[in-house]
């Protein structure tokens, strides 16, 4: 962790991702009166995933409150608040339900600064849980990051552990641009390696240093990938839940792979990606979202454009099949370690 860190961060605590996110909100709300939180069921109840628990009691009714069940209204009013000068952090209950607000996000939040030549802007941070692995079926499992990455003017952040989650949520709130902050709900309570039959791990008993979270203010800057595993044979690119799945797949493959956790896909850490692939000469991309037109395509294109002479094998993509998230077939659909290991071996063995 190379991030610049505040004084207050010396004290750390073991936190799961929910607690880390809650702490980020608490820190920012304590620091800055202009930060407020609202959304469906986030107030008194504390959110269906408990991320906003206790914030209303601590900071008051008007700092953290429930909203009518309209994602368009939630995002639209947040844009208005941001234009006034506040720093709203609305929650969308599931990323699957963000599409009623898609026009507000794409046509308005992302464009307000440009459209007004900088007179108005919309620094809204939209938190929303995304991704599968929880038997949530078609509408509690999707990974819509590609739909946002293509929209210029939006930033898209996807942390993979409590430390990054807190530090990047703080960075997102402090950032002057609208941010889509995708929370890998499968990781809320513990790391998940894509092996549903394994015993569940919590962050507390995971043994991972990323669950040691400073209690105070710190930032993990947007746009910097993190090197999860150094390696020489192949570069694996992943983000969110898939970072852990990638670790498992790499172990399964028994290959000395380098693993980059992209952490934010806009801004994208192109330098880290390029440097790694130039070093290894091979690249595998892993994401949960459906494959066709997914963000893996962009990554593949960028790598190919910038590392063509270094590539010793085709860039592989491992991703969701091109269908709605199929409830009963969750583990057939989920791009788990087995599929990744196959792709890694294919990449490494390619001559």
């Amino acid at each position: 962790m190379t991030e610049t860190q505040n004084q207050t961060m010396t004290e750390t605590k073991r936190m799961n991702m929910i607690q880390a996110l809650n702490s980020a909100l608490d820190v920012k709300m304590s620091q800055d009166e202009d930060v407020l939180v609202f959304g469906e069921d986030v107030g008194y109840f504390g959110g269906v995933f408990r991320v906003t628990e206790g914030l209303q009691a601590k900071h008051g009714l008007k700092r953290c409150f429930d909203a009518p069940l309209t994602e368009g209204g939630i995002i639209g009013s947040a844009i208005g608040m941001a234009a006034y000068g506040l720093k709203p952090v609305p929650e969308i209950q599931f990323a699957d339900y963000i599409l009623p607000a898609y026009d507000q996000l794409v046509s308005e939040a992302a464009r307000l600064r440009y459209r007004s030549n900088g007179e108005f802007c919309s620094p809204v941070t939209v938190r929303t849980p995304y991704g599968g692995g929880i038997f949530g079926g078609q509408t509690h499992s999707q990974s819509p990051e590609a739909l946002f990455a293509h929209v210029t003017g939006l930033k898209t952040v996807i942390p993979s552990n409590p430390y990054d989650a807190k530090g990047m949520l703080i960075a997102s709130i402090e950032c002057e641009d609208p941010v889509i902050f995708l929370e890998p709900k499968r990781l809320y309570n513990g790391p998940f390696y894509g092996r549903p039959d394994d015993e569940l791990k919590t962050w507390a008993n995971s043994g991972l240093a990323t669950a040691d979270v400073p209690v105070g203010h710190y930032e993990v800057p947007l746009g910097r990938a993190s090197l999860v595993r150094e390696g020489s044979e192949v570069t694996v690119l992943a983000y969110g839940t898939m970072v852990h799945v990638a670790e498992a797949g790499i172990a399964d493959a028994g290959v000395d792979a380098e693993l980059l956790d992209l952490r934010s896909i806009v801004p994208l850490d192109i330098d880290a990606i390029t440097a790694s692939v130039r070093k290894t000469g091979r690249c595998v991309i892993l994401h949960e979202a459906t494959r066709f037109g997914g963000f893996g395509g962009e990554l593949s294109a960028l790598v190919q454009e910038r590392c063509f002479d270094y590539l010793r094998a085709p860039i592989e993509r491992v991703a969701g099949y091109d269908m709605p998230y199929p409830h009963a077939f969750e583990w057939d659909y989920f791009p788990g370690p087995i599929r990744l290991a196959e792709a890694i071996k294919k990449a490494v063995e390619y001559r």
Partner: protein
Amino acid sequence: MTKSNLPRLELHIPEPPARPDTEVSFTHVNRGEAGAVRRPDIAEHESNMRDLPYELIRVLDDDDKAVGPWDPKLSPETLIKGLRAMVLTRMFDERLFRAHRQGKTSFYMKSTGEEAIAAAQSLALDKGDMFFPTYRASAWLHARNYPLTTMCNQIFSNAEDPLAGKQLPILYSARDYDFYSISGNLGVRFVHAVGWAMASAYKNDTKISLAYVGDGTTAEGDFHEAMTFAAAYRAPTILCVTNNQYAISSFAGFAAPERLPFAAKALAYGFPGLKVDGNDFLAVWGATQWAAERARTNNGPTLIEFYTYRAEGHSTSDDPSAYRPKDEAKHWPLGDPVERLKDHLIALGAWDEERHAALEAELKEKVKVAVKEAEAIGTLGQSKPPIEEMFEDVFAEKDWRLKEQLRELKHRRAGEGA
């Protein structure tokens, strides 16, 4: 007002009448008088009905009698059919909710306290009229004797799941029962119902449509778009708000501030709005019949608010004691719909406690048998439809991507098997 003495603005945040640590309060519920609300002619113009949204239509009075102009005057046989559907719904819900606790399914939602609505409407409407339900409307299927085992198979996502494992439990689709596919996305089907009704009118057909949204869901833009379309084209549809006072943890006051009836939302569109006791089987039936007749005679859409109460948690993922008084349900001023219909039948002399107990025993057994049958096929994760199903119905025909992906999956399976 001069600038200097302007008051400071305050942000108002709506709050419910009660929380876990306060007393139950239903003082805002005005039950009115059973039988008191007038029933206009079905061809009446909206401008002469603008008072209706603000009054509560009830038929069953406190002496269990059916009174007033909205009484549909049903035969005891029909009433017993309704009662049966409601009791079955409740028993099924209880049993399958437990199945979730036992890990046999990934998800379940009950409609406890709201059974009268879909049960009455299922029986009141005609075969061929299309219902665009929410997840709290399974009484429609029970009223029409949808096979319980098939329902369990869907809930268990097993090899016989009628939706072939593609959909979350209870998000049924049952075309043969005039039951449109349920979406996990709230609100979106309301306007489908309007389009469906427009299509029926376009074809000079006689079928009408019926759709639900919850109180919370009325806040979505989709609600407004559906209402606007229904009004513009006078679609033959019945649009309903099932106001069960809650959207998960949020009270209805977010979508309809200041206790404004949801029925009043019809005033924005120029078609009638009714507010109906949703726990009164007869009132539901009477209002539905009136709206259906309007729709069938080219008098256009009706909005009906069914005033009811979600007596249990939102879903298997919810614990309502975290946000409302534990005993709130017991105090709901409009009672329990099953009890009320039962008491009415008893008051009519067409029913008694013994027959009721026998009915309960019979239905309990039926549910038990069905669950057992479905369990024999398999529960979540222990049985599932053929893997090929995953790739079907994405498009009418698979394109090369799905073919390649299916091939890849099968190949891997073969390798794993070897």
